[in-house]
């Protein structure tokens, strides 16, 4: 399941509903991304996330399908927020449910790595020096390569 929303994420409720009623599920893995108060050397007082409405939902649905193709998963949940967020706020929740932990943990890791390099979101930070766009990190490009997604 995919959700792109401005509202906060209720992690407890989301994880509970992911496994509800399916007793074949042996474990739920999750990753929660939070807004940091530091960007480079500067203090960050807020972050604004912009996204490409339409393409975001399309790409998230494709990668959800890809995760199901790679691992025996019972459920996948990706909730990504947009709009203005402050340090400590939740940005994203990725959760995967499976009979066994290996599939759930690996798929969760794959999905968050993918979100960093391929989901069409952009962050802009508010700092004492003014507002600036966050630059993509080379480490994220390295991280996604381990999943051999691209030819």
């Amino acid at each position, binding site marked *: 399941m995919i959700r792109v929303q401005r509202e906060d994420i209720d992690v407890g409720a989301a994880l509970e509903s992911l496994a509800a009623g399916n007793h074949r599920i042996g474990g739920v893995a999750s990753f929660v991304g939070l807004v940091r108060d530091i960007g480079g050397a500067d203090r960050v007082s807020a972050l604004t996330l*912009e996204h490409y409405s339409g393409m975001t939902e399309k790409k998230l649905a494709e990668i959800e399908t890809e995760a199901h193709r790679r691992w025996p998963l019972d459920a996948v949940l990706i909730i990504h927020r947009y709009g203005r967020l402050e340090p400590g706020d939740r940005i994203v929740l990725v959760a995967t449910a499976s009979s066994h932990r290996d599939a759930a943990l690996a798929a969760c890791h794959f999905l968050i790595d993918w979100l*960093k390099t391929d989901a*069409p*979101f*952009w*962050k*802009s930070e508010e700092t004492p020096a003014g507002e600036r766009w966050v630059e*993509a990190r080379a480490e994220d490009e390295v991280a996604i390569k381990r999943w051999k997604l691209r030819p």
Partner: protein
Amino acid sequence: MKLLYFAWLRARIGCAEEEVELPPRVRDVAGLLDWLRSRGGGYAEALRDLSIVRVAVNQDYVGSEHPLREGDEVAIFPPVTGG
């Protein structure tokens, strides 16, 4: 053709979207970026370094050789920073 711009590309170009009539010689993404740059001003500034420009056609990532057709939705943006 509908063009969409995001993040600092939108800020430098000065609009989020526009309808354009492509000259017949523009046939692919590389041609489109060249043509936009030739408009000068914010376009030239935003598209100066194409190593930090990504393009999606009809909401799929494409390379510079991807052909363009009338009615395509073309989005131009910096490397993404979500998650």
